[in-house]
């Protein structure tokens, strides 16, 4: 099946706007390969929602699909309305770290709490890339950005763990140096129910890499590979030991009733009682 994969089948005939070496290419590829390997020849069973930022441009308008490109941080609320009304559609949210766990963090937590049946793929480039490289909630401690020229004085957020605490049915983290694991994880998540979250640590050579001291994209990917530790291994390590490492793998897999299931059961009951 993988042999006849052509990414062009899923994309509009438009020039992609991403910088050379951007991690988005890997993520786009992994996602569409996953879709292809699940037997979807097109994206007609999907709806994509995204906010503002480079990674929000992954589906919009490049995917040949329904896509709703919303204001900054507000993709999940729009996805909520769509999914509740059209429960049969696969609703997938693409967004950056600033979009999903910066300005949109409250929506992210509440959607996980409600167990809204959507898949959120967060491209974590550790910086606000589209606006030129400002500090993000995910920027590593002491990393230099345009708004932290002396190094970040804040602690970064562990989004994958946050998703678990908020009630997600699936939470995983990978990097763009792990495209196969990422693809398999996406395949699994698409087939699951409930709130599903995949964080992909990704390179932004333009707005992050060069300021953080990386000479090229290869160095960034090497850094991801070296810093990555599987979650099983991390569980046996002290907090100090995993500091500044990237814990990869699946953080949770579980089944909980979704808000959609609960809402439609409630409607059924209310209609019977109203007669």
């Amino acid at each position: 099946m993988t042999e006849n994969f052509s990414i062009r089948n899923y994309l509009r005939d438009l020039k992609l706007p991403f910088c050379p070496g951007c991690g988005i290419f890997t993520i786009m590829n992994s996602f569409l390969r996953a879709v292809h390997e699940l037997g979807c020849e097109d994206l007609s069973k999907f709806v994509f929602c995204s906010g503002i930022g480079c990674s929000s441009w992954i589906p919009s308008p490049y995917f040949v699909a329904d896509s709703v490109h919303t204001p900054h941080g507000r993709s999940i609320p729009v996805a909520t309305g769509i999914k509740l009304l059209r429960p049969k559609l696969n609703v997938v949210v693409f967004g950056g770290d600033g979009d999903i766990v910066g300005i949109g963090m409250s929506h992210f937590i509440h959607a996980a709490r409600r167990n809204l049946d959507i898949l959120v793929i967060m491209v974590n480039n550790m910086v606000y890339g589209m606006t030129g490289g400002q500090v993000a909630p995910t920027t590593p401690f002491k990393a230099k950005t345009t708004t932290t020229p002396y190094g970040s004085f804040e602690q970064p957020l562990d989004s994958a763990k946050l998703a678990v605490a908020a009630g997600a049915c699936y939470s995983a983290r990978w990097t763009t140096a792990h495209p196969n694991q990422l693809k398999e994880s996406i395949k699994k998540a698409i087939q699951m129910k409930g709130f599903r979250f995949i964080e992909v640590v990704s390179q932004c050579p333009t707005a992050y890499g060069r300021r953080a001291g990386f000479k090229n994209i290869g160095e960034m990917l090497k850094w991801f590979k070296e810093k990555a530790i599987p979650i099983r291994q991390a569980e046996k390590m002290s907090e100090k030991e995993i500091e500044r490492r990237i814990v990869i793998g699946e953080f949770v897999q579980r089944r909980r009733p979704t808000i959609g299931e609960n809402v439609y059961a409630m409607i059924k009951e209310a209609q019977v009682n109203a007669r």
Partner: protein
Amino acid sequence: MKLPKPDTYFWQGNQACAEAAIVGGCRFFAGYPITPASEIAEHMAKRLPQVGGIAIQMEDEMSSIGAVIGASWAGAKAMTATSGPGFSLMQEFIGYAFMTETPCVIVDAQRTGPSTGQATKCGQGDVMQSRWGTHGDYSAIVLSPNSVQEMFALTIKAFNLAEKYRTPVILLSDETIAHMREQITVPQIESIGTINRRKPKLKENAFFGLKEIPPMPAVGEGFNVAVTGSTHDEHGIRFTADPLAHRKLVGRLNNKIRNHVGEISDFEDYNTEDCRIGVISYGCTSRAIYEAVEKAGAKGIKVGSIRLKTVWPFPDKIVRKLAEKADKIIVPEMNLGQIYYEVERASKGLAEVIPVNKIGGGELITPEELLNKILKEAGKND
């Protein structure tokens, strides 16, 4: 299905709004608690499931209108309800709904601001915000009811205008109309006209242009619709730098409202035939005019009134016509002067425009206060 039976009821304004929304076809509501709009959410939470719809309380006002916009793109008529503070938070998405041509209804039950102000008290301070609240060049449709009965009618009208013009419509209520209980007659449902958005034909693919009001597909219908708040062409493809693309899109979006002011405008003309003094009012404040106009008339003063049911787009021609007849136009408002400036602009110096303003504590402008003002302006305040 369980729609309200045609009958006479004793309802609160907010309840009339909720029932009318259901009659008007609303099947999705998302909101966040706020005085004096919460009863709309409560009624919708009870009533929508009975008719197969969904009502959800979101985490804030931004997500409330966001979910409403999502529901609209999923094909449903959808509504949210809030008051000043929440209305401020919704402005970002109101601009988005305008830019993406997403029909939806936003109820703003006004209270006393700015900020938390006097949260349970009536005010009319959001009139300009309802017109200019979001950023960028846009045009708004804003309706203002002055009774429970009219709340019912204008809520349905709000949905119809939203669907017809593919744009967000604001129902500018206020604490008085929202919380007041009055007798209301629900007509035969079949007699109420409802409008639905035009759906695209099988091969249509321009959902954001070519026509003044393009057809609107829902997601999941196979149209591969690309919705974006960025400047886009008729296919939804972003053009973030091209000046012509922006002029074309934003020009059309504004013109589809500005070119139809006559059709959209709704007002009540009371005794303006040969009046020398005119009163222009809207919402709760307009309830004081009838008694004042009648009593002034009994004293031989030629006074008439125009009550705006559509506040925006502003009915320039109607105001201009009144200014041609009257020497003076009195504009009572529960703010420090908002529609007053519009009346002054539209009357082009043909009449003297006089504001009557009252804010704080939810105290309404009384018929006596208005009558005294009319008498004074007519030179009869002896």
